[in-house]
C-alpha cells in the first residue's frame, strides 16, 4: 500500500450524503449503453448451437451444409479453439465450457457457433449443423451423483483432499475439512442436540441483461471487445489465454451492466465471438438469449447439507459440525469449501468441524452468486440454530447473542477476528420495533444471521485535474452498484471539492493498469483506496504548483478545504488558492496536474448481517407472502447511504426469490425444464414489501473512512430467515429451498400424517 490506510475518525462533508448517482439519468432515459447497445461497421450476428443432451460424447460435427448457406461467414467448433492451456486445468475447463471438445457435459453446452449477415440466416444455418452424439448416462442431482452406481462423469477426476489418494475416479472432486477443538467431546457435553439434513436447489443470479458482446479481430493481430462484464481486465486475460493473443493487443471496453452478481466474472461466449471474428475477418456481435443464459451460464450450486449442533441448557453451544455437498457443474470448483468456511462464521465455537464435498454433475458450470456458497450454508446452520434455541426454551435472538463471535474470537474457518459487527446487528435486531410487532393469522416471524468475507485486490486509477478545476477519475473496476457515486464522494472529500465537480469514468483495458474484477464487495472498498491515494498525490502536486505561483517553499504550503494555503506568519496574509486557480495556471507551472495510483488494495473487513422476516402462509394453497422484512448490516462506513440501502434491499429481494420460488427443474432426460422467466419465477415489485434497512457502522481499521464493502452479505441470511418464518407460521420445519407452495403443502400434509 502506497499510503497509510489506517482508519481515522473525522467529520465529513461529502461522505455520508445522498446525491443523485452520476449514471442515473442515462439509465432511466435509455441512453446508457449496455452490452448489446454497441455496433461496429460490417458486423455479423453470431448464434450458438447447444447440446440437447445432458451428457454425450461428440463423435463428429459436420458443418458443411451450414457453411454453404448464403450469408454465413464463419462456422466454428472446438477445432477452431486449439488447446493452449499448457496444462493449466482452470484455463482448460474454461475453454471446454465455452465450446465442448470431446463431450457435451450438460444440456445447453455449446458445440458449434455461426457468424452470419443477420440473425435469421444464422439461425437457419444452425439447424444444418449435424452433430453425431453418443448419449451417455447422466446425473444432475447432487446426492445422486455421489450415490453408489452413479455414472462417473470424468475419468480424470480423482478426489483430492483425502489420504491415501484414491485410485478410482469419482464425482467428488475435492474434500475439504475445517475447524478446531474436539466436536465429539463437545457433543458429549451438550444437553440438547439438533441434527437435520437440508437441501437447496440451484438458482440463477437472474441479471436482467443477458451476456452480450461485440468482438473485432483485425488482420494485424489486434482485437477489440466491447462487453458486458464485471471485470474487463480479467476478461481480457481469459480471452487472450484461450485465443493465443498478446494481452496488449486485445483492448476490452466494458459496457454498462444490467446486473452481474458474480455471473459476469467468467467468460462464456466472448471467446466464441472473438474466434468467429478472427475466422470471418469481420466484427461479430453475440447476444445470448434468456434461454441460453439459464442453460449455459452462471447458476449457483445445488446443495445437500447435514448439520449437527449441540448446546447446554444454559444456552451455550458445545459443538457444531456440518457436511456440505455442493454441485459444481462439470468442472471442479471450491464452492462447498467456501460454504464450509462460512457456515459457522457468526459464532464463537470451542468445537467446530465442517466438511465440504465438491460434486461433479451434468449441469452448467457453477459461477459465483453474491457471497457465493454462503446463503445455503447459512440456511442450514441458521435453521438448526433456531430449532435448537426453541428446544432449550431460549429466544432465538438471545441464543445467538449468547454465542455470537466478537473481536478476538477464533473463527470457524481459522483466523482470529478483529472488530466485527455480528453482535451489534443482533443487539439492533433485539430492540428493533419489527421484533415486537404483533403477527396476524397464519403469519410467522423468522430471523437469521449471515457472514461474508469481502475482498480487496489489484487496483489502478488515474486522477486528472482539468483546466477548469473539475476532476476526472479513471477507474478500472466496473460500476455494478453505484460505485461511481461513492468514488465521487470519497474523491470530493479528499480534495475538498463538490461532488458535482468529480466525473468518474470506467476506463478500458488499454488506458489503465490491471484491475481485479468487481467482485467480493470490493468495488468501493478497493477503488476508493486507490482514489484516495491518487487524490493525495494530486494534492501534493497542487501544493508544489501553489508554491511556484507564490514563489515560496512547498513546505510552507498546506491543503485545506479544496485550497492551497500558505502557512506561517511569513505567508499568512496570502489568500488561499483554489483548485480552479491552480488548474488555470497549470500550463505555466509545469503542465497538466494528475494523480496516479496503483496498488494491491487488500485489508477488506469481514461483514455480518441480521435479517428479520414476517411471512403469511395460506394453509389451503401453500402460497406465501412476505409481509415485512428488515435488514440490519454493518457497512463499516456507508459512503452513500441510499445506495448502501439499495444493496441491502437488492440482496434481500434476491434471497426472498431464491427462498420461495427460484429453482432449476430438470427432467428425467437431464434437460432443463424451465429456462425462462415465465417458469423460473423471480420476485417482482408486487411480490415484495418495502424492505426496511438499518445501517450499522463499525469501522474497518484498514480503510481511512472505515469502509468494509456491502454488496454481498445481504443475500446470506434471507433463505434461513424465511425458512424460520415459514416454519414458525406452519409449525413444520421447512428444510428444502425453495419453500414453494407444493413443498409447503407437502410438509403440511406429512405433518397431519
Amino acid at each position, binding site marked *: 500500500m502506497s499510503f497509510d490506510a489506517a482508519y481515522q475518525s473525522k467529520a465529513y462533508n461529502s461522505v455520508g450524503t445522498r446525491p443523485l448517482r452520476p449514471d442515473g439519468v442515462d439509465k432511466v432515459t435509455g441512453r446508457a449503453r449496455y452490452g448489446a447497445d454497441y455496433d461496429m461497421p460490417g458486423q455479423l450476428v453470431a448464434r450458438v448451437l447447444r447440446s440437447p443432451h445432458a451428457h454425450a460424447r461428440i463423435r463428429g460435427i459436420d458443418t458443411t451444409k451450414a457453411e454453404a448457406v448464403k450469408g454465413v461467414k464463419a462456422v466454428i467448433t472446438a477445432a477452431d479453439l486449439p488447446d493452449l492451456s499448457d496444462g493449466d486445468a482452470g484455463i482448460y475447463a474454461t475453454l471446454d465450457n465455452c465450446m465442448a471438445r470431446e463431450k457435451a457435459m450438460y444440456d445447453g453446452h455449446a458445440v458449434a457457433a455461426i457468424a452470419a449477415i443477420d440473425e435469421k440466416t444464422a439461425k437457419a444455418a444452425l439447424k444444418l449443423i449435424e452433430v453425431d452424439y453418443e448419449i451417455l448416462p447422466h446425473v444432475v442431482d447432487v446426492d445422486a451423483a455421489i450415490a453408489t452406481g452413479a455414472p462417473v462423469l470424468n475419468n480424470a477426476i480423482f478426489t483430492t483432499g483425502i489420504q491415501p489418494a484414491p485410485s478410482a475416479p469419482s464425482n467428488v472432486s475435492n474434500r475439504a475439512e*475445517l475447524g478446531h477443538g474436539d466436536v465429539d467431546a463437545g457433543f458429549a457435553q451438550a444437553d440438547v442436540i439438533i441434527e437435520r439434513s437440508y437441501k437447496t436447489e440451484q438458482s440463477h*443470479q437472474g441479471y436482467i441483461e443477458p451476456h452480450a458482446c461485440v468482438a473485432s479481430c483485425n488482420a494485424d493481430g489486434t482485437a477489440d471487445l466491447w462487453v458486458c462484464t464485471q471485470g474487463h481486465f480479467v476478461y481480457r486475460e481469459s480471452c487472450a489465454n484461450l485465443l493465443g493473443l498478446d494481452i496488449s493487443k486485445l483492448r476490452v471496453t466494458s459496457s454498462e451492466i444490467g446486473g452481474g*452478481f458474480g455471473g459476469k466474472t467468467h467468460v462464456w461466449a466472448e471467446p466464441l465471438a472473438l474466434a468467429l471474428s478472427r475466422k470471418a475477418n469481420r466484427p461479430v456481435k453475440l447476444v445470448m438469449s434468456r434461454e441460453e443464459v439459464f442453460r449455459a451460464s452462471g447458476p449457483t450450486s445445488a446443495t445437500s447439507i447435514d448439520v449437527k449442533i449441540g448446546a447446554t441448557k444454559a444456552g451455550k453451544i458445545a459443538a457444531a459440525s456440518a457436511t456440505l455437498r455442493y454441485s459444481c457443474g462439470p468442472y471442479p470448483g471450491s464452492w462447498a*469449501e467456501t460454504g464450509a468456511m462460512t457456515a459457522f462464521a457468526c459464532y464463537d465455537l470451542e468445537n467446530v468441524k465442517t466438511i465440504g464435498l465438491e460434486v461433479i454433475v451434468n449441469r452448467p458450470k457453477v459461477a459465483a452468486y453474491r457471497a457465493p456458497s454462503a446463503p445455503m450454508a447459512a440456511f442450514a446452520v441458521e435453521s438448526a440454530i433456531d430449532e435448537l434455541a426453541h428446544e432449550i426454551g431460549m429466544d432465538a435472538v438471545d441464543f445467538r447473542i449468547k454465542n455470537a463471535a466478537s473481536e478476538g474470537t477464533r473463527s470457524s474457518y481459522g*483466523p482470529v477476528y478483529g472488530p466485527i459487527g455480528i453482535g451489534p446487528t443482533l443487539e439492533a435486531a433485539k430492540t428493533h420495533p419489527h421484533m415486537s410487532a404483533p403477527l396476524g393469522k397464519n403469519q410467522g416471524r423468522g430471523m437469521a444471521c449471515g457472514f461474508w468475507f469481502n475482498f480487496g485486490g489489484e487496483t489502478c486509477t488515474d486522477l486528472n485535474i482539468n483546466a477548469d478545476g473539475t476532476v476526472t477519475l479513471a477507474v478500472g473496476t466496473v460500476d455494478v452498484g453505484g460505485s461511481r457515486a461513492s468514488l465521487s464522494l470519497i474523491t470530493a472529500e479528499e480534495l475538498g471539492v463538490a461532488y458535482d465537480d468529480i466525473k468518474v469514468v470506467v476506463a478500458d483495458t488499454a488506458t489503465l493498469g490491471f484491475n481485479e474484477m468487481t467482485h467480493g464487495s470490493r468495488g468501493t472498498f478497493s477503488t476508493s483506496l486507490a482514489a484516495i491515494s491518487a487524490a493525495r498525490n494530486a494534492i501534493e502536486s497542487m501544493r508544489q504548483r501553489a508554491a511556484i505561483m507564490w514563489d515560496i517553499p512547498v513546505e510552507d504550503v498546506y491543503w485545506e478545504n479544496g485550497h492551497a494555503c500558505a502557512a506561517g506568519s511569513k505567508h499568512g496574509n496570502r489568500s488561499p488558492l483554489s483548485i480552479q486557480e491552480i488548474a488555470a495556471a497549470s500550463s505555466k507551472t509545469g503542465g497538466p496536474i494528475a494523480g496516479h495510483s496503483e496498488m494491491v488494495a487488500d*485489508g477488506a473487513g469481514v461483514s455480518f448481517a441480521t435479517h428479520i422476516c414476517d411471512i403469511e402462509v395460506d394453509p389451503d394453497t401453500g402460497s406465501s407472502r412476505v409481509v415485512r422484512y428488515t435488514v440490519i448490516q454493518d457497512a463499516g462506513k456507508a459512503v452513500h447511504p441510499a445506495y448502501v440501502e439499495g444493496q441491502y434491499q437488492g440482496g434481500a429481494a434476491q434471497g426472498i426469490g431464491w427462498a420461495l420460488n427460484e429453482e432449476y427443474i430438470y427432467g428425467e432426460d437431464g434437460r432443463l425444464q424451465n429456462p425462462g422467466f415465465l417458469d423460473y419465477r423471480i420476485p417482482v415489485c408486487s411480490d415484495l414489501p418495502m424492505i426496511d434497512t438499518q445501517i450499522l457502522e463499525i469501522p474497518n481499521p484498514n480503510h481511512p473512512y472505515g469502509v468494509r464493502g456491502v454488496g454481498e452479505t445481504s443475500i446470506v441470511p434471507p433463505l434461513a430467515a424465511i425458512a424460520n418464518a415459514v416454519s414458525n407460521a406452519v409449525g413444520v420445519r421447512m428444510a428444502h429451498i425453495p419453500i414453494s407452495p407444493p413443498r409447503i403443502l407437502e410438509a403440511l400434509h406429512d405433518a397431519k400424517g
Partner: protein
Amino acid sequence: MVEVKLWSGLRPLADNRDVVCVEARTIREMLRKLEERYPGLAQPIHDQVAVAVNGVIYRDDWSQELPDGADVMLMRRIAGG
C-alpha cells in the same frame, strides 16, 4: 518466528503438518521459506492461497509485515460475487 496454520488442503503437501514455524518478517518471506521447505506448496501458493494475518485477509499484498506473535493462516483463495 511465526506459526503459520495451513488449511486442510495444504497439509498433505507439508508433511501433514497443520502448523509450520517460519522465521519471516513479511508475507512474501514467509511464503518463500514455506516453498523452500515444502516444494509441493509452490503451485497452491502461486494461485490458490490467501493469507490471513490477525484476522485480515490478504490476497495479493505480500509485502505486509508479520507482527511478532501474529496469528497467521494460509486460506484458500475463494471467489466473490
